[in-house]
């Protein structure tokens, strides 16, 4: 039986009727139309569906949408400021950390949470933070470089 659930996503409240078995990843994509969140493996292995729940990176395929009620959810759609890309997104583009793009939303959100906690991480800390997000194209080197570059720019601007 469907239940009425209010999800707070990127600062907006969305009221929607959901089956309890609906995962957060499914709800974001199919009910709210926020298709930036990708669904890869559905079993927590790949990290493509990463969103931030109260700022904490989480695999949205392993969270029931109904369990996300009352929490602040951030998806990749909430990262840019209007048409202005976030420094992290800019760095990903410029450094060439994106090929097919499927892992990128999860990578960016995980990196965003890392930089919030640690504004100047070492390569080892970046790799550890991103270790749950798999990329099958770029081989990680460029992704680590992009996060390092973004950290540098963000430190400069503040």
């Amino acid at each position: 039986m469907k239940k009425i659930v209010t999800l707070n996503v990127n600062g907006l409240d969305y009221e929607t009727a959901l089956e309890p078995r609906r995962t957060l990843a499914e709800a974001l994509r199919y009910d709210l139309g926020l298709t930036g969140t990708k669904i890869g493996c559905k079993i927590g292995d790949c990290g493509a569906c990463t969103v931030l729940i109260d700022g904490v990176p989480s695999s949205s395929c392993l969270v029931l949408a109904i369990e996300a009620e009352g929490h602040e959810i951030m998806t990749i759609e909430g990262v840019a400021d209007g048409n202005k890309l976030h420094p992290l997104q800019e760095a990903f583009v410029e450094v060439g950390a994106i090929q097919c793009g499927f892992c990128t939303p999860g990578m960016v959100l995980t990196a965003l949470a890392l930089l919030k906690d640690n504004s100047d991480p070492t390569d080892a800390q970046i790799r550890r933070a991103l270790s749950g997000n798999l990329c099958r194209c770029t081989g990680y080197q460029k992704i680590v470089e992009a996060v390092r570059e973004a950290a540098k720019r963000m430190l400069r601007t503040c």
Partner: protein
Amino acid sequence: MSYWYKPERLMRLPQFDYHAPGNLVDALNWLRDNEHLNVRILAGGTDLLVDIRGKAIPDGHRPRCQEHRSGAWHARSSPPAEIDYMLALSHIPELRTISHDGNRLLIGSMTTIAELEDSADIRTKLSALSDGAAQLGSPLVRNRGTFGGNLCNARPAADTAIPTLALSGKLVLVSAHGERTVEHDDFVIGPGESVIKPDEILKEVIFDLPDNPSASAYIKLANRKALEISVVGAAASLTFERNDSSPGSTEIAGFGKVINARIALGAVAPKPLLIPDAGKALIGGELTDETILESARIASEKARPITDHRGSAEYRRMMVEVLVKRALTKCRERMLKQPVAEVQS
């Protein structure tokens, strides 16, 4: 192909209803009143929401990791689970606490793996548990997965279970009818099976903190640093006699002979395995290279590993010796690094 194999049935989770009580008493009463239903308890969901999906490895398919092996391979396919209700523990704040009670550390079952990893108290007082938490899955899994879920899932390689066994953690199981406390060694019966009853909830795990100097460590061997179930895991927990002998003595300042030692192994038996003889080999003497090697050798003899896609029985047995040695060496390192004043507190 069996009847249930329809792609669309695998796309989504199976149907269930959902209930999220706001406190433990309500949850226990609800479990008692709904005994006739098929209920699953939902903690972080990182095991449960994976397990209840139907699995479709088509008949006849042989995974690549099995290609070089001889013998039959049985495709593991299973229909989605049939569930009436998910009972979510996420709205019960009393289960998500880490607290002190005199000489005991109490860890609530809904404490996340990341919270275990980040707790300074656990890092210094229950180091092996901190080691295990830091190596479980990936950051994404640690952020949602819980201590209680890892223990209740009862897998033989569970990364917080092996340290819990070595550190003599006691599991507090509660139901509407009362409360009981179970040693970890008696909690797990076999792979995925524990003594927990359908109307019971794991409330917390109690660790007695010794007055004497102590140290513990957990070492995990896996093919990669993240997202990997261990090939072998070894945890050691040691308590020492207090020793204030003068400098120049062969004994390390601040602690002397080993008075209690527990060695636990993961992924080498159908359940987390305590090796009492490996501990006994250390008790009564100082922690030296010789006693460490002897203990590691005994552990390797007593392990009961099997061959599977993660490693052969022979390899696992050899690795037990190496890992126990490393875990004990790490304990010694930790004792030496600890300032003496802290050891005595």
